[in-house]
């Protein structure tokens, strides 16, 4: 990681590295080939190059480890890098190995070819020849020395020097020394007699045993060639001593011998070092190969990483784009084809981002429109249904469910036929919609259906959905529940009629009554008894009937009169109990009360509610047989989607409402009974509606007539009150 962070320019690093390696290898190669000044640096160079190899090996190892780790993590571009590195190593390793193999072969063979048995032999012979020549010289010198030693016998010590000079009167380069057994010099003569060179301990030991010594040795000064040392024992009278002759080998002979000797030594050394030489050459060659290869591989890693970098970035970029990040921009670092590719990628992602933004915006717009439409549909009092080309339900707003008493909003994608099965009361209506819906033209129709709350009238409009090429692929049906509207129209009409009637009928009634009374008053005395009785009876009948008619007209006027409400909080259960106590058991009905505890108070006019209860009880009382009437009164709280309602159920055990009258049971003068004004239920309905509530026939109750009254809880009442007052 640290290595990657330290990033000098790669090309510079590679150049410097190669220069260093080549310089070092060149030095080492030169050092291997000749033993000049560079030879002293050989070991250091070897060590430096070995360390360099180790360093490179570490670098290459780190790179390989890094690559393997990346491969394992499936990092982008790692496989490409691995393949290229492998290829590069293969390409560089193959020729290098071949060259290396043949170089080694050549090296081994050429070194071996330096050595030949005949040359070996010749060298040995030359040396022996030299030794033979030297032996001859040595024998001569030894003989001379021994002869001189014989002549020195019995010469007194003081005469030794003179005798020695006499013996060797001919000027020679030789040195003569006479010394005692203890190494004391007794006499010396010759060219270099200042510090006579005495033999070493080994020779002295030999001499002490009485044996002469002769030997060849290099001269004291290196350039003086060889000399022969001959030592003989001088047997003196009282003590024997030694005579030493140091005789320089003739210059020419010495030179030749030296040449032969050094050549022989050199050859022998070479022969001995043959394997070491091979090994060191091989070592140098191997090191060169290894260093070059490692440097090449490391450089390959560095360059391949540089080459692959844009590809890796591209892959990362592509991944980012695949994951939805269109903001990804890659740096353009080169002007080549890869740079062009990266530029194109950037252009592509920019376009993608733009397209994505546009799509996002339009999706948001669509979503907004959809939400708007949904809100619109949801708050629409009209029911809206839409079907696709296979007549599967696609849209159903809340109102459609409420109107049709079916959970249609949760039946999206249900076919029409299946809906008909699920909701049998809708079967006819849905069949009609299906049939009409297939048309290519808009349609309008009033549909009647028998819902759970009685007959409903729906005013329906259908519009076909056409696609681009005007082909039919669905339909929209919008319908309104006009049941209430029709009822209200009917009520309003009745109100109008009632007021007219009241007005028109009530006006002549008083003159009629007054006229009748006047008639009786005037004629009562003038007529005879039987006529007077007839008159009295007739006028009384007229007055009575007029009174009755007045009562009826007043009731009618009451029904038609606009509402005047005195609202106050009312506990419905308490009110019911109060009303029920007014009907003692002897009145012929029995009450069964199921009143929920803790119902909240409603805002209502208690007087009017009492009238509602009286009307309903009276209605039931009249419908049931004398003495067997049972009236059930139930209250409960019913939560709705928007409001909470207090529900009051009034049920009797009478014959019930005939089916043909169910629809019009709340209209005035719709009654099956002989008694009553025929306005009871009409007034009940009017009062309930004035309170913002609803009343309907309980179609589910089969044991008699049942009515369901719903009264809103205060917040809802407040709303309806403003409506009524407004």
């Amino acid at each position, binding site marked *: 990681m640290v290595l990657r962070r330290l990033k000098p320019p790669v090309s510079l690093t590679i150049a410097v590295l190669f220069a260093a390696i080549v310089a070092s290898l060149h030095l080492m190669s030169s*050092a*291997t080939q000749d*033993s000049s000044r560079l*030879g*002293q640096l*050989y*070991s250091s160079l*070897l*060590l430096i*190059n*070995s*360390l360099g*190899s*180790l360093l490179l*090996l570490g670098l290459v190892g780190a790179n390989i480890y890094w690559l393997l780790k990346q491969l394992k993590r499936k990092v982008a571009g790692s496989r490409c890098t691995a393949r290229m590195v492998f290829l590069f190593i293969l390409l560089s390793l193959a020729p290098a190995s071949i060259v290396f193999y043949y170089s080694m072969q050549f090296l081994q063979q050429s070194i071996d070819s330096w050595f030949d048995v005949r040359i070996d032999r010749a060298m040995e012979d030359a*040396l022996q020849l*030299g*030794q033979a020549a*030297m032996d001859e010289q040595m024998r001569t010198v030894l003989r001379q020395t021994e002869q001189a030693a014989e002549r020195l016998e019995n010469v007194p010590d003081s005469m030794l020097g003179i005798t020695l000079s006499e013996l060797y009167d001919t000027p020679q380069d030789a040195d003569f020394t006479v010394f005692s057994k203890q190494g004391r010099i007794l006499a010396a003569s010759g060219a270099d007699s200042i510090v006579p*060179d005495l033999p*070493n*301990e*080994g020779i002295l030991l030999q001499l002490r045993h009485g044996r002469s010594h002769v*030997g*060849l*040795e*290099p*001269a*004291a*000064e290196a350039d003086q060639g*060889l000399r022969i040392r001959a030592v003989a024992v001088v047997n003196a009278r009282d003590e024997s001593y030694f005579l030493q002759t140091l005789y320089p080998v003739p210059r020419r002979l010495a030179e030749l*011998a030296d040449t*032969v*000797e050094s050549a*022989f*030594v*050199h050859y*022998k*050394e070479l*022969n*001995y*070092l043959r394997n*070491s*030489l091979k*090994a*060191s*050459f*091989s*070592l140098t060659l*191997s*090191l060169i190969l*290894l260093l070059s290869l490692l440097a090449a591989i490391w450089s390959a890693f560095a360059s391949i990483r540089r080459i692959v970098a844009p590809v890796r970035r591209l892959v990362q970029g592509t991944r980012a784009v695949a994951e939805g990040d269109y903001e990804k921009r890659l740096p353009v670092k080169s002007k080549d084809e890869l740079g062009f590719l990266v530029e194109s990628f950037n252009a592509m992602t920019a376009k993608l981002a733009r397209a994505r933004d546009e799509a996002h915006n339009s999706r948001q717009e669509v979503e907004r429109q959809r939400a708007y439409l949904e809100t619109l549909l949801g708050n629409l009092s009209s029911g809206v249904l839409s079907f696709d080309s296979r007549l599967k339900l696609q849209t159903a707003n809340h109102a459609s469910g409420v109107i049709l008493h079916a959970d249609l909003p949760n039946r999206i994608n249900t076919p029409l036929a299946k809906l008909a099965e699920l909701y049998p009361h809708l079967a006819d209506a849905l069949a009609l919609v299906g049939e009409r819906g297939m048309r290519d033209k808009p349609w309008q129709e009033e549909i009647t259906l028998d819902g759970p709350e009685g007959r409903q009238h729906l005013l329906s409009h259908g519009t076909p959905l056409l696609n681009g090429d005007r082909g039919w692929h669905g339909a929209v049906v919008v319908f309104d529940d006009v049941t209430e509207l029709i009822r209200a129209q009917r009520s309003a009409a009745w109100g109008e009629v009632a007021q007219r009637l009241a007005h028109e009928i009530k006006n002549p009634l008083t003159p009629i009554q007054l006229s009748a009374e006047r008639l009786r008053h005037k004629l009562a005395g003038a007529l005879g008894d039987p006529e007077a009785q007839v008159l009295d009876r007739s006028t009384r009948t007229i007055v009575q009937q007029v009174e009755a008619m007045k009562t009826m007209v007043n009731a009618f006027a009451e029904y038609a009169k606009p509402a005047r409400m005195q609202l106050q909080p009312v506990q419905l259960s308490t009110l019911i109990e109060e009303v029920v106590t007014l009907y003692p058991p002897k009145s012929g009905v029995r009450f069964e009360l199921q009143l929920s505890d803790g119902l909240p108070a409603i805002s209502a006019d208690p007087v009017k509610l009492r009238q509602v209860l009286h009307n309903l009880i009276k209605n039931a009382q009249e419908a049931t047989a004398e003495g067997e009437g049972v009236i059930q009164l139930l209250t409960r709280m019913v939560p709705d989607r928007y409001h909470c309602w207090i529900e009051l159920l009034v049920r009797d055990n009478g014959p019930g409402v005939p089916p043909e009258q169910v629809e019009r049971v709340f209209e005035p003068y719709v009654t099956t009974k002989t008694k009553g004004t025929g306005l009871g239920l009409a007034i009940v309905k009017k009062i309930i509606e004035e309170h913002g509530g609803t009343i309907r026939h309980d179609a589910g109750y089969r044991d008699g007539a049942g009515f369901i009254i719903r009264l809103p809880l205060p917040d809802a009442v407040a709303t309806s009150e403003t409506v009524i007052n407004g």
Partner: protein
Amino acid sequence: MNPARAGFGAMLLLAGAACAATDAPRIVRAELVRDGDRHLLSAEVEYRFSEAATEALQNGVPLTLQLNLQISRERRYWWDETMVDTRWSFRLRYHSLAKLYQWVEDDGRAPRGFASLAALLEEMGAVRRLEVPTAAVLIPGQTYQARLAVSLDIESLPLPLRPVAYLSPAWYLGSPWFQWSFVD
């Protein structure tokens, strides 16, 4: 040859020094004697050469040995101070024509020849009164630590032999340090 192995071998070489003690020289005795403004080193060295070294010598490869003397002063809270670090080099070679083993010293004296290697080594082992220039350095009356060792100078071997000499224990011809203290 693998350079990694070379590096490894160099480490082996140091570790192998002690193991190769049987064929290595040993310093039996050493002493320093003051002589005026200098010291004289006398020592007894038992030279033992490995077969490889002997064979190389007989095949004309000269061997260079170094005698290294170090004199140091003890310091209580610091490393010892090295006062003197002297080396004497001498070369051994075989003269084929004369069939002699030669002992060549640095001081320009004539090489000394010996008929056998053993004679040469014995002679060479007796170090007599080698001069140590100590006048300006050592203070009389003070105690000093001296140590002496002999080693083969591999760098002066022929070039092809050096890697082998560095790696092979047979070529480790150094003695362990011989230490003694003396009062000047």
